[in-house]
């Protein structure tokens, strides 16, 4: 899954990929971290990052994540890409384009549900991506015309990758 995060006045792009049980690859902008993360109890997490041990508490309330570490609290505003595009502006994240269809997570294109030139309605499913043993239909954020399709069935896509360009009606 890809997220847009805001900590302090800085914005980051984060991608979380599950490598195995409790093992994650977390990209923060272009920095890669291999993390062994365990939920201890309630909101508490134990993170091992390159063998360094961190115990943190994460409380969530409508996309506002409060991370407590060593007695200090940090507020992180976090949205997944799509949401960031949708409500980004108000959410103070902004930046992301509105209309393009991007992958929310690393995965494989199972099926394209539209062709170039097609008219699509808002929220119409346009493509199916398989990830973590599940299939996920991604919908159009806006009504419009399919301007360009950048992937094909069977192709592996990265999180946040541009899949389909739409021309808003």
């Amino acid at each position, binding site marked *: *899954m890809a*997220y847009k*995060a805001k*900590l302090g006045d800085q914005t*980051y792009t*984060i991608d*979380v990929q*599950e490598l195995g049980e409790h093992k*994650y690859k*977390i990209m*923060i902008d272009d*920095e890669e*971290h291999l*993390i062994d*993360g365990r*939920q201890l*109890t*309630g*909101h*508490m*997490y134990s*993170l091992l*990052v390159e063998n*360094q041990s*961190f*115990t*943190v*508490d*994460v*409380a*969530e309330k409508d996309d506002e*994540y409060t*991370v*407590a*570490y*060593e*007695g*200090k*609290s*940090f507020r*992180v505003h*976090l949205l*997944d890409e*799509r*949401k960031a595009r*949708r409500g980004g502006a108000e959410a103070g994240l902004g930046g992301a384009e509105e209309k393009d269809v991007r992958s*929310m997570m690393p995965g494989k294109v*199972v099926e394209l549900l539209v062709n170039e030139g097609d008219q699509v309605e808002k929220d119409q*499913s346009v493509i199916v991506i*398989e990830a*973590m*043993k*599940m*299939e*996920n*239909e*991604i*919908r159009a*954020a806006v009504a419009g015309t399919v301007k360009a399709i950048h992937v094909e069935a069977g192709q592996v896509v990265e999180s946040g990758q541009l899949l389909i360009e739409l021309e808003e009606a």
Partner: protein
Amino acid sequence: MFKRVLIANRGEIAVRVIRACRELGVETVAVYSDADRSALHVQYADYAYPIGPAPSAESYLVVEKILAVAKQSGAEAIHPGYGFLSERASFAQACTDAGIVFIGPQPEAIEQMGDKVTARAIMQKAGVPVVPGTDVLGDEDEVIAAANTIGFPVMFKASAGGGGKGMRLVEKKEDVISSLRSVRSEAKSSFGDDRMYIEKFIEKPRHVEVQVLGDTYGNIIHLYERECSLQRRHQKVIEESPSLAINQDVREQMGQIAVEAAQAVQYVGAGTVEFLVDAHQNFYFLEMNTRIQVEHPITELVTGVDLVKAQIEIAAGEALTIKQEDVRQRGWAIECRIYAEDPDRDFFPSPGKIQILRTPGGYGVRDDSGVYEGWEVPIHYDPMISKLCAYGRTRDEAIQRMLRALQEYIVEGIVTNIPFHRWALTHPRFVAGDIDTGFIPQEYTGLPEEEDHLRHEIILAAAALAAYHKDQELARSITGSVSSSAGVSAWRASGWREGLR
């Protein structure tokens, strides 16, 4: 010894008293306001009685209600803790009149020490040093003469003054006349009263107090000092014992004088004689607190004497079991008051539900808490949720141990001042012992911004991981399919689809 004692208080001090009672085999009666029904002191007590609405004026401060519960519950004595009714002579009297033992000094002592002017007079009479000063002064010559006797620098103070107004520091003789004029005029304009007097100016004052214990047989001992110079708005935040402000001679002398101060009012029970200490180890009587202090634990750690038990035993008519010569300081103790307040937002109080509570442990760590995991810290009372103490062979060990303990202390759901304590305990001036009552206002400008890159990465990663788990659970919870605002829709097990292929 009493069979049953009522604790007319709440929070950590109520718990502290309950613990002392339990160890003495005394049954405890708690009282609670509507906001405190589920409080820790109610859980720990043998009996608990409601005394009304959350506001203390309608519950913990209502003498009649407390006495009524005492009678109803068959309590023979009442421990007032600190704050609330603890220093009200009238309450102590009311208890006595009701035939209930008040665990504290006799009403007269509370009365006398409660009035600062009277207290100052009694102390002077007893030969206890007070901040040198004059009565109201007349013309310039009189003022100059007085200033010379006291010795510069001096403070010119308007009799009617207050809130920092009508005060002026006068460094040398030459400034007397001009300062006098301006003080008088300022006093006149501000308070319509230009009378003034002079007081010695104490430079870089340190707050050092001495613990005393007196029994009903006239035995009074002291248990040495505590330094409480770290204050915010006259609120003590960090205390330690012993104090670096005084050497051994002054320490013994101060203790002796504290005993004399207590003797001057035939003091019974646990009390504290507060002094101001200047850079030259001169000390001056400030006031006497006729109750157990918040910071009493550090004295217990250093002397090995349980002060709250001593209070109860004294009230039960027992003679002191410790002699002055048996009282010895061993090691060093520091107390950090853990408040539910945000050091990043000007210590704004932060009540709320404690989601996670993990208290520190191990050698030399003492936690006196009034809360528990799941407890909703009410908005109605003091924000102090706990007192964390660290004991060590040396001051340095105590500091390091406290930092270690603060690191282990996890309180989630509310904001606490734990990071502030870490700032203070690592401040070069504190480490060097170079502190005075001006330390926090002078030095604290908010928490340091750790521009630690890794720290940021960890925080972001943790938030992302939590979000990821949330999304996963959501996906799994809605069997086979989920539609979240994330625009993700119609999840289906691949297996199912594969079956179709």
